């Protein structure tokens, strides 16, 4: 097996290239710029297209145009940039164009900071822009997953004609680990809807305008039927030591992986802890949560935010067990701190 030591951001970019990404359109922003820099080095060498756009708005609209040709395209940014991109993401979602959007997220609101954050959870999982829509959201937890989810992301994007967001943060982007470099993707979905000149067929139209109420409603129903199908098929989560756990932590991304160590350390301290790591943030793996409420006594949402995913956890738990929260802002807590957090909640709950 070909193992290469890579940074998370590089692994993601390389994964996208292996998946056939042919166009990158981006605007520099810390801590995501390494992805753009990697693409700027690599794509021209293989005949692909790299454009540094004049703005985040232009970048996402280049993705809109690029995806409409049927080619695999992507952009990468961070919080403030993702906010600007929301206009375009709404259009792309309604036009049902597959593409990959990476958020190497940083703390907000406002300019915030460049440190790790999960504070864009609501923005990513609720649509984020105007109108009724969803994007699929994948949350990798290792450098290997940065590569693998780029490949998976394109596959899901094409299969459901939906923009896919990869939610990472700066520590994961900079985390260097051995990566098994995957094979190049060689088979691709046909895209008869793509626009690239109408030779030999009727013209195709990519459009998001629906002036009459009934057509607009029909469009929304169509999108939500698709979302229902995605919810049926694509919820993903990893569970860790939940079978006999009294306290089940729910966390995503690299943070969740750090918490595995805390779960083990909490158990050494007599607290039977477990972990659910949502891999798809949308669709949210609510069945995994619901299942553990049969056996656990408390759920604990750990986030690098003031508490966003906790709302989805509460909805999934349907009041069966209490849902507690532990959050920090601006950095990825150490496992020792997270262990203390777990033990504190366990003690308060008399576990």
């Amino acid at each position: 097996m070909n193992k290469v030591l890579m940074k998370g951001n590089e692994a993601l970019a390389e994964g996208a290239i292996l998946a056939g990404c042919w166009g990158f359109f981006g605007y520099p922003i810390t801590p995501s710029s390494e992805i753009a820099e990697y693409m700027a080095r690599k794509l021209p060498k293989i005949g692909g297209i790299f454009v540094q756009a004049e703005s985040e708005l232009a970048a996402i609209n280049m993705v809109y145009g690029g995806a409409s040709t049927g080619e695999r395209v992507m952009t990468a940014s961070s919080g403030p940039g993702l906010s600007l991109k929301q206009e375009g993401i709404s259009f792309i979602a309604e036009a049902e164009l597959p593409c990959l959007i990476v958020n190497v997220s940083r703390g907000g609101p406002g300019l915030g900071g460049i440190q790790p954050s999960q504070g864009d959870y609501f923005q990513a999982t609720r649509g984020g822009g105007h109108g009724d829509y969803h994007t699929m959201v994948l949350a990798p937890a290792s450098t290997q997953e940065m590569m693998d989810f780029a490949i998976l992301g394109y596959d899901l994007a094409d299969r459901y004609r939906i923009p896919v967001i990869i939610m990472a943060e700066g520590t994961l982007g900079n985390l260097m680990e051995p990566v098994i470099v995957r094979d190049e993707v060689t088979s691709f979905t046909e895209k008869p809807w793509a626009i690239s000149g109408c030779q030999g067929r009727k013209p195709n139209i990519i459009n998001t305008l629906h002036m009459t109420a009934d057509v607009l409603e029909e469009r929304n129903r169509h999108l939500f039927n698709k979302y229902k199908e995605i919810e049926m098929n694509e919820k993903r989560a990893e569970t860790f030591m939940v079978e006999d756990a009294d306290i089940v932590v729910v966390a995503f991304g690299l943070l969740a992986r750090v918490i595995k160590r805390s779960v083990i350390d909490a158990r050494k301290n007599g607290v039977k802890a477990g972990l659910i790591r949502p891999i798809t943030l949308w669709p949210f793996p609510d069945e995994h949560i619901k299942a553990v409420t049969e056996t656990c006594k408390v759920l604990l949402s750990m986030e690098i935010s003031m508490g966003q995913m906790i709302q989805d956890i509460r909805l999934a738990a349907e009041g069966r067990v209490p849902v507690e929260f532990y959050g920090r802002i601006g950095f990825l807590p150490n496992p020792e701190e997270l262990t203390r957090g777990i033990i504190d909640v366990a003690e308060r709950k008399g576990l």
Partner: protein
Amino acid sequence: MDDEKQILFAGFGGQGVLSMGQFLAYAAMNDGKQVSWVPSYGAEMRGGTANCLVTISSEEIYSPLTEHPLMAVVLNQPSLDKFEALIKPHGWLVINSSMVDRDSERTDLTVLKIPVNELAEEMDNARGANMILLGAYLEKTGVVRAEDAVQHFEAVYKGKKEIIIQKNREAFLAGVEWAKKNW
């Protein structure tokens, strides 16, 4: 997890701290180990020092982070001041005595001191100080066998000029020799 080691490298930006960690991660990976390398993060980011944390384990690594590394390799005084108290009980502390004036206040640690800046100047290889330190460190601790690690210079410095690779290897080997004699 039981043999998991976490090693912190810390110093000023420009002292080659990050590349020391990357070299170790690379060598450990080629030794068949699970590894992770993560640059300055969290609260430790503030305060003018660069640092990185390398985790080496024979099993899956859960946390690439820690509050309490087993070993710390410090290249300057502020790094010693900041990290000394955080090292695990009975852990290791390696000090660049060229840039650090005081002794460790911890009595439980294995403390190793080496004047790498002077050694590098003697070799007329000022930029090789970090590799002298790494060579000595590996020779003494055996985290990765120094004679295995030295095989990886070509791969780690792929694309760099031969003279740079050569100078780094020389520095590394000088560190190995120094450790054999002095530690």
